[in-house]
């Protein structure tokens, strides 16, 4: 395994990379610089604050201290040596190392960055998963027992939802799989903004840690929306919510810019829009959503943060208590499509390959992705049916019902592709089918929620919680596992044993449905959200839901563990085990170093499996 130059703008000197003189590991250096940054800025602000009664770490100083820490961390981990100094004309001393160490330092290789994103995201999944298990433990009984106060429980709900959404849902398939795959899929050796991308990935662990440690500053009860005016009353932990999510979003924004630029400008000759792979279309749609909506929510967070620390009455009855929620969901609904569009794209990517059948009605799949993207900005207020005034209820409900049409196109394409195919049943294809099943339930229960009259009953109950876990876990997480199994040979050059893979798939499928289908029922029976205690008549069902949830938790651990094992120790894989035609499978497996020694030329669509169809790609030497 060696890293060859060429795909990295840093190798201009032509030297081959060498293992440098042992230096401090970059994350270590980052932590130390972060500590210095925090102390420095916190002290300055604390020192000049005219309020004599404040403590050393106070609301205002901690915000600046955190900024100092973030800059210290990003500089220490590689930004200073590889970005800042060269920008001022200093010679570039940074060398990319080889072997496992390169995953723990600044890199410009999109594949390394992709894996860094995936691992950081996996870390978030574990932390937020532990929080979920703690919630389910508490809910086994109808009175407080695990947590002492309800605010501790509510903080846990918030930490769970926040980390899941902003470091898993938004990140895994976009920052992770997207960064890894997209440059290869479009036949390029690097992404467009590889240096920026190398630094943005380090924002993810920092953001996760900020949110995970927020309870140290004080409990916050708003859940993942961080909503004002409640946030202004909450403990100071809410400050770390805004800051942590802010930096996670900044990371996703950079990912989006990078992916769009890569797809637009880095395509190999012959890779026309008509031939662009489905996953690339998915990434393009998602990235546009990110570019439009992330700045909107970042601005809102800044306003909310100021409302908290200054404080400003922007969102109280003097301003309007509705404004924050409207602003939040304006972003929040596109966000859920940011999570799920990659999953839909992945189905269309994998199914033709594994059924050896031409992708059916490709253009309608693309139209679906694009229209979901366009409509998703018009449906936000369905999160607020009981909150908003009467006049907007019906228009919002209308658009909400309409968005199911383009979403349905993904099913239409998938089904058309499966029909009369020779469907290879293995772990990734099984997981895709399971994902379709789960997402179908998520979507159809959405039809009930889109109806305002019915919504007035279901809103803020566990029915809603069941609905969105079906779309996110059922759709996005199951698809992510499908992608992990499918691309394992590409990542590692190794493969898995299909029996153990399918065993894991069935495990999470059964445990997932056992857990979350009951969320619908318990919600209909009157179980409302955000409560650690509830009426006694709901206790037995909650108890038994928790048991299923623990089984699901272990199921996820099993699958993650098995994938890691296969990655390191699994049997060697063929170069192109699924006989796929897309460009990433023309790059070496495992994909280390340069993707394409000679420039590929695309001469055909990637999803044509009819007998006469020629190769999709040729290499001219």
């Amino acid at each position: 395994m060696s890293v060859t130059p060429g795909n990295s703008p840093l190798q201009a000197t032509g030297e081959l990379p060498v293992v440098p003189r042992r230096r401090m590991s970059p994350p270590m250096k980052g932590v130390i610089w972060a500590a210095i940054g925090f102390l420095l800025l916190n002290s300055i602000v604390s020192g000049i604050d005219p309020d004599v009664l404040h403590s050393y770490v106070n609301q205002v100083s901690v915000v600046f201290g955190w900024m100092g820490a973030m800059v210290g961390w990003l500089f220490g981990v590689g930004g200073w040596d590889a970005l800042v100094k060269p920008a001022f004309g200093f010679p570039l001393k940074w060398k990319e190392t080889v072997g496992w160490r390169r995953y723990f330092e600044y890199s410009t290789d999109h594949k390394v960055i992709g894996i860094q994103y995936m691992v950081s995201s996996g870390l978030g999944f574990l932390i937020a998963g532990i929080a979920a298990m703690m919630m389910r433990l508490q809910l086994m009984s109808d009175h407080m027992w695990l947590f002492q106060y309800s605010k501790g429980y509510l903080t846990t709900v918030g930490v769970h939802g926040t980390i899941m959404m902003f470091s898993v849902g938004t990140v895994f398939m976009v920052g992770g799989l997207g960064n890894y795959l997209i440059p290869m899929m479009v036949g390029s050796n690097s992404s467009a903004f590889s240096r920026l991308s190398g630094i943005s990935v380090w924002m993810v662990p920092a953001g996760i840690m900020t949110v995970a440690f927020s309870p140290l500053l004080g409990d916050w009860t708003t859940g993942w929306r961080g909503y004002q005016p409640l946030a202004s009353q909450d403990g100071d932990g809410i400050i770390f919510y805004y800051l942590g999510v802010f930096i996670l979003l900044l990371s996703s924004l950079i990912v989006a810019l990078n992916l769009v630029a890569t797809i637009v400008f880095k395509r190999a000759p012959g890779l026309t829009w008509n031939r662009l792979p489905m996953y690339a279309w998915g990434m393009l749609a998602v990235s546009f959503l990110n570019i439009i909506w992330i700045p909107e929510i970042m601005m809102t967070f800044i306003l909310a943060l100021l409302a908290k620390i200054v404080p400003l009455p922007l969102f109280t009855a003097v301003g309007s208590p509705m404004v924050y929620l409207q602003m939040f969901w304006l972003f929040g609904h596109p966000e859920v499509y940011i999570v799920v569009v990659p999953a839909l794209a992945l189905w269309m990517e994998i199914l033709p390959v594994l059924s050896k059948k031409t992708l059916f009605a490709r253009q309608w799949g693309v139209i679906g992705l694009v229209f979901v993207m366009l409509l998703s900005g018009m449906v936000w207020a369905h999160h607020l049916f009981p909150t908003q005034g009467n006049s907007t209820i019906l228009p919002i409900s209308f658009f909400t019902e309409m968005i199911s049409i383009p979403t349905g196109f993904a099913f239409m394409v998938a089904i058309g592709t499966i029909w009369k195919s020779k469907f290879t049943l293995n772990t990734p294809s099984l997981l895709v089918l399971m994902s379709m099943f789960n997402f179908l339930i998520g979507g159809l229960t959405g039809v009930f929620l889109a109806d305002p009259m019915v919504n007035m009953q279901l809103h803020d109950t566990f029915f809603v919680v069941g609905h969105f876990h079906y779309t996110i876990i059922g759709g996005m997480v199951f698809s992510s596992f499908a992608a992990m199994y499918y691309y394992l040979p590409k990542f590692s050059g190794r493969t898995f044993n299909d029996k153990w893979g399918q065993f894991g798939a069935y495990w999470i499928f059964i445990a997932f449905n056992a857990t979350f289908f009951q969320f619908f029922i318990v919600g209909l029976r009157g179980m409302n959200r955000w409560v650690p205690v509830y009426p006694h008549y709901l206790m037995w069902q909650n108890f038994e839901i928790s048991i299923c949830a623990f089984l699901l938790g272990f199921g996820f651990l099993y699958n993650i563990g098995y994938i890691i094992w296969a990655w390191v120790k699994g049997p060697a894989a063929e170069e192109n085990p699924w006989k796929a035609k897309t460009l990433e499978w023309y790059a070496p497996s495992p994909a280390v170093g340069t993707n394409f020694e000679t420039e590929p030329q695309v001469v055909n669509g990637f999803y044509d499996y009819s007998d006469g169809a020629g190769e999709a790609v040729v290499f001219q030497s």
Partner: protein
Amino acid sequence: MGDFWGFGIIWVVLSVIADWIASIVGRHFYVFTASVQAQEGQAAASFLLMTVVPIFVFVVMMLFYALFRFRRRKGDTGSSTSQVKFNKAYVGLWVTLSLVVNLFLFVHPTASAMQVYWQEGQAYNKSSNELIVDVTAQQWGWSFSYPQYGIQESVDSNGNDVLYLPVDRPVKFVLNSYGDGDGLSEQIDVIHSFWIPAFGMKTDVIPGETRYEYITPTVISDTQQNGMMRVQCAEVCGPGHPYMESNLHVVSQSNFASWVQQQLKLQSGS
């Protein structure tokens, strides 16, 4: 063609069976309904359930076809024999049907049910029989007053806030956040949501705004008898949110009249 007809016939048969089951199970979608409005919501939900079940059957059948009918046999390594890239009839039908179903659902039950609910509100307001209950939300509790009867804050024998309603009489809830209209006390409170699970309706209480909810209770019952008969805050509103609930009693008209007398006595006595 064989697969096509086979699939079609199985789909129709299974859909009919599933819809028959849905028509029975769907009647209990709301679990317990104790108001006119909950019954309307229940009817809308049943209708939606009957509509989506055939769609569910269609897609799930297709997944099973992938698993069994179209599964690659051992040793077969070739491409699929069928390589259709497009089928006008299938795509045309899919797009048209999904458009028609959605537009249809928007008209009924979405718009129709909301219209009925809003018209009920207008009718209640015109009726002389309407009971007005002022509901005040505050971190973390509910209080209820009955301006038509001069009851300022209804309480039970333990001094807890309690909501009493007569059966079969239209009620207008006037929902406000706590405050004396000075613009300051409202300022400190947050959003709450007024929800009685058995009534099938919830309305948020926004500081600085007045909201209304219209209900006609139809069943005599109370929190003790049925857990869904409770006033529950449904929007997270801080550490006390889980505890922000009150008991509810729906009683006969005559019991309500005597309860009013008893409340008035209690009020003047203290």
